[in-house]
């Protein structure tokens, strides 16, 4: 019997393969690794130098910007949304900033009020630019704040003394935090939902010696948390309507990283029975089908970071049994494709990210004291981006297109002599012919047209001669991710 989900997976794989082959072909023709298709804009962060200074950089189609930060400390976490707006968080000296990239230049704005005494371990940002940051404040108390418009508002009702190990925020503004708090018997797992600036009570009722190490939430406010439980076993649970539904993994070890997309497909990774562990989850309501990813390294291996795109393809990163960096792409059938980083012993991948263009971004250290970051194409071929002294601790690869859409327009008079009407003619370029699936055109804030991917012009008729029209063109991919936007104003007389 035909399984429609499997069928969709097969179709997605086929499309990815075709895009991948095209990219490889162009790469070969060019003779050098210049990305002929859009890779999306990425953000990488960590530290640089032996006396650590914060390091953050924008990645655009295989090119890395100079350091966008100037603080003398390290960066712990970065996040970038599909509008090119991101957050970076670190320790001290003001490395708590909103990063805004418009396809050409990058602006870094410190979060207010001053967070310089805090230590922000984790940051997350949603599609609207609302962020969630977590760590400790100047008094080393637990600190979680919602960041909107560059202003941080502390979340109340937290369990004091807890250690935040993960934050996530959905497009609706629902946040989720995870970590642990200390009791006499050891750490106790802590997870809470954040809504309206208030944290819920602890959703978990695990015994001592448990911890939540990673959290994720999708646009439907379905959450996924991972860590380890009292029995020393890996722990993963779905959070659905504020209730926790643990999944049975029958796995010793821990889940270090979790990810979930808007379709309810998840990816988890960590330490399993005798080696690295990762699995693909297909979540349905309060349950999930767990498909372990085969062929992962054994021994002292672990998966530090996982990420999943809107299509259900993922990326995992960590180290293998020989203490050498390990990373792999994971397709929709949970089949891994190892990324050949060519790194030696001592190298580690700390963070991995993937976007809907089929590109991945991995970051860590190369084992020789140098930071390592690489852009990975959809065939698993990495292109190294940095090799300065230091470390890449966190990476985020968005669906934000680096190539801006340029739009032009003018007003014409359609003259039938006895009667006439004015119309505006708009035309634009399509910088992403393989990715753009549709356009939305808005006039003065009102949607006036939904256009197909082939559209490069539009005529807007019956305009008033005295009226000024402001047009916004939004380009979307097949999953309605915003790829780019452009605007133009046509003035009336």
């Amino acid at each position: 019997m035909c399984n429609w989900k499997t069928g969709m997976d097969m179709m997605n794989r086929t499309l990815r393969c075709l895009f991948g082959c095209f990219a490889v072909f162009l790469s070969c023709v060019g003779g050098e690794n210049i990305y002929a298709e859009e890779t999306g804009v990425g953000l990488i962060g960590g530290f640089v130098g032996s006396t650590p200074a914060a390091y953050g950089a924008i990645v655009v189609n295989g090119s890395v910007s100079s350091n966008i930060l100037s603080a003398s400390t390290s960066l712990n976490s970065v996040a970038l949304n599909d509008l090119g707006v991101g957050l970076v968080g670190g320790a001290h000296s003001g490395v708590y900033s909103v990063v805004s990239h418009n396809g050409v230049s990058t602006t870094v704005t410190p979060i207010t009020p001053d967070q310089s005494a805090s230590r922000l371990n984790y940051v997350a940002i949603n599609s609207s630019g609302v962020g969630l940051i977590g760590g400790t404040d100047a008094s080393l108390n637990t600190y979680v704040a919602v960041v909107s418009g560059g202003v941080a508002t502390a979340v109340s009702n937290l369990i004091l003394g807890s250690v935040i190990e993960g934050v996530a925020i959905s497009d609706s503004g629902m946040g989720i935090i995870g970590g642990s708090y200390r009791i006499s018997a050891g750490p106790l797992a802590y997870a809470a939902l954040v809504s309206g600036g208030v944290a819920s009570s602890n959703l978990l009722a695990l015994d001592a010696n448990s911890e939540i190490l990673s959290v994720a939430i999708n646009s439907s406010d379905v959450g996924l948390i991972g860590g380890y439980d009292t029995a020393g076993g890996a722990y993963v649970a779905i959070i659905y309507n504020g209730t926790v539904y643990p999944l049975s993994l029958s796995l010793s070890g821990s889940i270090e990283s979790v990810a979930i997309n808007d379709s309810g497909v998840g990816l988890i990774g960590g330490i399993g029975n005798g080696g690295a562990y990762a699995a693909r989850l297909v979540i349905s309501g309060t349950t999930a089908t767990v498909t372990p990813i085969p062929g992962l390294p054994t021994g002292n291996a672990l998966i530090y970071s996982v990420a999943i795109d809107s299509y259900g393809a993922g990326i995992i990163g960590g180290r293998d049994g020989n203490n050498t960096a390990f990373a792999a792409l994971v397709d929709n059938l949970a089949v891994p494709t190892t990324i050949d980083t060519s790194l030696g012993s001592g190298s580690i991948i700390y963070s991995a990210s993937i976007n809907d263009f089929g590109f991945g971004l991995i970051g860590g250290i190369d084992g020789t004291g140098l930071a390592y970051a690489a852009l990975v194409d959809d065939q698993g071929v990495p292109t190294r981006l940095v090799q300065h002294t230091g470390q890449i601790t966190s990476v985020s690869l968005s669906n934000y297109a680096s190539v801006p859409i340029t739009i032009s327009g003018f007003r014409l008079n359609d003259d039938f002599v006895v009667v006439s009407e004015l119309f505006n003619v708009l035309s634009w370029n399509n910088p992403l012919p393989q990715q753009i699936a549709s356009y939305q055109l808005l006039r003065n804030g009102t949607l006036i047209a939904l256009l197909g991917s082939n559209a490069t012009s539009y005529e807007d008729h019956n305009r008033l001669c005295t009226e000024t029209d402001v047009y916004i063109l939004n380009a979307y991919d097949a999953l309605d991710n915003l790829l780019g936007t452009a605007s133009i104003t046509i003035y009336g007389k």
Partner: protein
Amino acid sequence: MTLKYIASILCFAPWIVGSEESLPVCSETEVSFFGSKPVVAKKACKIEESSKSDIEIKAGYFFFASPRMRDVYNSGGADVQVSGAWGFWHWLRLYGSVEYLQRSGHAHTKEVPIFIEEDSSTIWEIPISLGLQARFTHALTHSSKKISGYFTIGPKYFFAHVHNRSHYVDRSMNQNGLGGFLNVGMAVALTSHWMVDCFGEGSYCKLHFKSSHEAAYGHNVQVGGITFGGGFGYIF
């Protein structure tokens, strides 16, 4: 043969188609005898006045006088008329006609010429003319035919209908108004009852079209123009 024939002399004046009775008036020579020697004396050319009536069917080619109208309505131009004239005093006649003309084209888009099927437009008009016509006639030498010229002037009522093939302006628009016309022509009476005619006519009428479509603008336009054509008529 010493007798001279009656010679025809054409005069440079408007001619009017006249009746059989008035035919030999302009080009006659008078013969008298001085002893046995004939003396020929030419009579002066005379334009005949006529008060006969006729009815006529005309066809012609019409084009707008307004350059803006010509820009848009740049094809077609068929013009048909039914006219009649009633001679009521010497060379003066009362003239009337009912006419139909049509032209079509495409909307003119300023700056960029975008001509697409949806922007096509058709205009037809029914002008009704009433005027005074002065006509003069002259008989042709060596022929029983008469040639005549006429000049007509008077008011003209226009009814105009415009059909626009566009979603963005009124698809159908009507307007009417009063203007004027001036008509000159030349006719040849083939027999005592049948004639052919060629003419040129200019007309003027300004109409204001009002748009009921949102964000479309109606304009004042000059719907008159120039018609050249010919006709076939019956004299009675």
